[in-house]
């Protein structure tokens, strides 16, 4: 029995340097991305310690006094904490559950159509709402849903029904939030699924067609399983940010009558943390959200690997 001698450290270093030099262009391309993550993602983590301090700008991050978990306790002790958490989760889950199927449907429909020109027009039109700001979408929603001059309420009045205050009723506000998000983002979300469909080997469809499979059977047994990796990826990523229920959207759409169903963690942080200049509190809530997101990603990834056979990592 013989053992190969372990390479000397300087030899290993030399080999590494050679390898780096050999792939220098790849490393060069990696640099901007790496710099982005270091500057904008990892460096702020250092400043996240203000969540445990009473941040005083004149003393700086390092010089501000420690206060332990005071800001976390303040958040958990808020009278509205449970309501904020429930609203955030309901709206977020609603967006995931009701947002993904239309995107898959749209992707499949675009993939199945034999008229490329029509497909391209539909694709472009369905992307457009993604580029509208929520302020503009609010204007559109008001024009549609306003009790006094909204198109839908004008229709309801025309058939003798009472107008519905969609944006100020606790019964309709959450559906409006979720459905307006679905309308705005379905086209954009379909891109990933469409890319997954385009990566499926066409030979599979040809073989299935020769074997007599109908279009529906091809979709069910080839297209949908072919999208599974991407679906898992999308769901996992969305779970990671489940406590981000869409600050901009809610901030523009909500009003006092619907706070009980529309106030989410981020809008509370804006009012209590940012508008009252309690940056440590805002950071503490941000850390809390990040931690929950991390736990959900890890757990969901394990479940996905176990039951679906694929995962994020």
């Amino acid at each position, binding site marked *: 029995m013989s053992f190969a001698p372990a390479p000397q450290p300087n030899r290993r270093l030399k080999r590494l340097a050679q390898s780096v030099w050999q792939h220098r262009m790849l490393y060069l391309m990696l640099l901007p991305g790496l710099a982005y993550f270091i500057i904008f993602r990892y460096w702020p983590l250092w400043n996240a310690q203000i969540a445990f301090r009473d941040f005083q700008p004149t003393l700086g991050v390092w010089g501000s006094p420690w206060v332990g978990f005071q800001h976390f306790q303040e958040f958990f002790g808020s009278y509205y904490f449970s309501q904020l958490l429930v609203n955030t989760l309901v709206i977020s889950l609603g967006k995931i559950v009701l947002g993904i199927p239309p995107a898959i449907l749209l992707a499949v429909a675009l993939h199945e159509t034999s008229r490329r020109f029509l497909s391209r027009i539909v694709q472009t039109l369905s992307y457009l709402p993604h580029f509208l700001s929520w302020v503009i979408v609010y204007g559109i929603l008001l024009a549609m849903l306003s009790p006094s001059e909204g198109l839908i309420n004008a229709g309801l009045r025309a058939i003798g029904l009472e107008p519905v205050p969609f944006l100020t009723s606790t019964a309709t506000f959450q559906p409006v939030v979720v459905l307006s998000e679905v309308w705005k983002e379905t086209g954009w979300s379909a891109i990933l699924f469409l890319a997954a469909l385009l990566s499926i080997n066409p030979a599979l469809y040809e073989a299935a067609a020769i074997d007599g499979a109908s279009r529906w059977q091809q979709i069910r047994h080839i297209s949908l399983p072919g999208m599974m990796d991407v679906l898992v990826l999308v769901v996992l990523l969305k779970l990671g940010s489940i406590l981000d229920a869409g600050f901009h959207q809610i901030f523009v759409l909500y009003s006092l009558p619907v706070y009980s169903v529309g106030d989410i963690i981020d809008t*509370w942080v804006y009012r209590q943390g940012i508008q*009252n200049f309690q940056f440590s509190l805002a950071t503490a809530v941000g850390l809390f959200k990040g931690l929950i997101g991390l736990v959900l990603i890890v757990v969901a990834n394990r479940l996905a690997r176990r039951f679906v056979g694929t995962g994020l990592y």
Partner: protein
Amino acid sequence: MRKSFRLLFSLALSSGLAASWALAQVSLTDLSVALYAANPEAPAPPANWDVYRIVREKLGINLKFTMLPTGADGDNRLGALAAANDLPDLFEVRSLALFDRLVQQGQLAPVNSLLPQMPGRANDRYNDAKRNLLVTNNGQIYGFLEPVTLSRQYGIWVRKDWLDKLGLKTPTTLEEFFEVAKAFTERDPDGNGRNDTFGFGGVIDFDTAGILPGLGLGNHFQWVYGAYGVAGTWNYNPRAFAANLREANFRKATEYIRRLVEAKVIDPDWATMRRADLRTRWQQGRYGMFFESVGGLQAGLQNFHANNPNAELLLLPPPKGPEGKSSMGTYSSAGWLYAVSKRAIDSGKGAAIARFLEWAHRGEGYFLLGWGRYRTDYTLPNNVPTINTQVPINVRGSYTQMRWLAFNGNPLEMRGRYPEINVGGRKYVMHQLMAQAQRQGNWIDRTGDLVVKAASNQADLERYVSENLVQFVLGQRPINDANWSQFLSGLRNVRFEQYEAAAEKALKDSGYLR
């Protein structure tokens, strides 16, 4: 000989010029000033603005002016600058919560030592000890708190042409107001055959410019609470101090607003509309009565008369309640607040700040900052500065973005800022309307409210009160004994008693509650 003399002379001259230029450069003080946009509809002053040159040449100040967006965006921007320990040298503060925090954090400099360096301004504007108390901490004054230049400028405007058409009298009581609002909603006052008008237009608005909204539904409904004697947040009763919402009349006022909503005489979008939406709609001619400031009216008259050629507006006195009480709302006698950063004082800019503020107080500085370019933006008929309304505000406004530093609110100034306007064949004397709004509104001075510090859970507290009231008014929760008791007892959950106790102590300590 002559040649060498010339050479020597030119050398001496050029070195002298260079030296004076260098001296001027050395003695220039960089001064960063950040103010909320005085004219949000106009851009910042251009780089070649005369003020920059004059201030540089006459005061030795290299002025850098930054315009803050109005409203919460401006507050947040200042908050972000504070968090980065990068506050401007001289800046305006509109959020008292931010002001208190900056004082606590030691980011503001006491300004006591600057007052003697600007004797004219200090004597005319900062010699009110009671007002200074609002910005005093541990015996030090932490800001220049101006006397108010504009307040109580709001009112309820009524369409007189609609009243005449329907044969109605100007409402003077809450009951008459209700009947008129109902008629405006149901009797097609614009005669277009469509059911598209409303009796009253108002929104949930908490703007604090010249008015103090108090906890609850905001500025536009204060007149209802005023009619029941419970306008504002606190009752200012030294024997039984409490929040007004604990009074029985507060419930009655809320019930009255519920009546208006239930009868559908208020625009059903009121709870979600912004102030800009309200303005669009009254200008379209959709409301028989609406809540608006004199300035807001002045800005919208052109559109209003274009859409409603035969319209005529009247300013309504606040309607009287069942006990004969009336008030349009509460206001503060404290005006704009300017603060100086500690960094500015530490780097020796105090004298430059005093120089600049004194210059802005009167004479050349006052006119340049307050009124803009002479004969372009304003004229001086009979020595009364009068704005030139022919120059659009989005042009004229650029040159008066720092006007609040200059204005002092004297009657001549008001005449100039709110001139006579002829529009749609009608004459509006805006400064007279302003005086009328201030005089007939029975406004209640609640300057003391400003000494009450924000609670640590202010957002929860404000939400609790406002949300519950909106739910009552919209009918989401019926107003009955059980629900109202539940609302009042629920105040405990947001630690309202502690807030009340802190308010009482602050008001007593400052002498506003005796």
